[in-house]
């Protein structure tokens, strides 16, 4: 047996380990749990993209032939579709992030009330649902705009 100096075993006894599907979707507030998971996944993806982006953009100082060959490599359909997914993730993460900041400061939340039947969650009220819909809508709009500019080669 290894010694445990911190309080993690107390935490684990109080909150037993759950299955990954339960962790992702197992909650009475299902839409909130799904957006929580999506927010984290898109955040990780965007951070990874940012690190790769800094590395690839740095090749611009290698001269014009290097840059052109790199751009020719990046112009394959799989990576372009990846950019569309990225734009949708960016829109969702941004709008959902604004919603999270607002609810952290209690802007859209109501006063706490006694838990009566049918135990509706007070934080999942109408303005929260509207903001969530806006988050999904904005991600779809950014996806379509990306499709317009990247795949249909729209130019002004």
């Amino acid at each position, binding site marked *: 047996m290894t010694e445990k100096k*911190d309080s993690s075993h107390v935490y684990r006894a109080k909150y037993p380990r759950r299955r990954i599907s339960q962790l992702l979707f197992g909650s009475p507030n299902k839409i909130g749990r799904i957006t929580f998971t999506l927010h984290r996944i898109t955040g990780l993806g965007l951070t990874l993209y940012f690190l790769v982006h800094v590395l690839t953009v740095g090749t611009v100082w290698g001269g014009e032939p290097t840059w052109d060959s790199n*751009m020719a490599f990046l112009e394959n359909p799989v990576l372009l579709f990846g950019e569309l997914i990225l734009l949708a993730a960016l829109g969702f993460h941004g709008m959902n992030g604004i919603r999270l900041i607002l609810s952290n400061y209690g802007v859209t939340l109501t006063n706490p009330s006694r838990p009566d039947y049918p135990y509706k969650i007070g934080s999942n009220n109408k303005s929260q649902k509207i903001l969530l819909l806006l988050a999904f809508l904005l991600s779809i709009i950014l996806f379509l705009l990306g499709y317009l500019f990247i795949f249909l*080669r729209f130019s002004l």
Partner: protein
Amino acid sequence: MKESSIMLLHYTTGILIAVLGGVHLATHSFLGVTGYFDSLNYGSVTGRYNDSLFSIVLELLLINVTYHGLNGFRIILIEVWNNNKWTRIVNWSTLSLGVIVIIYGTIIVLGKYFLI
């Protein structure tokens, strides 16, 4: 730094990224260029790097996104595994990775002074 000030900075950098990232996307679709592929020409890209206003936007974006992204990664890691030693390891490694990314990115943004 206190965790509450770290989270306050997390929110402010998030809002700043929403604004500056909008400018960054605009410069790659309609602001000063005719389209996405036109904005990726060698002359167009170096022209933007030589413009001091766009350089400031890129530098601010670099610092804000590095902080926000790596702090989010740190939060996820220390929430999944709850352990004092692990927390210390994650804090120091994300901090050093962030410093490396900011230095590397600053050299690229100011590449007209460093690399040519």
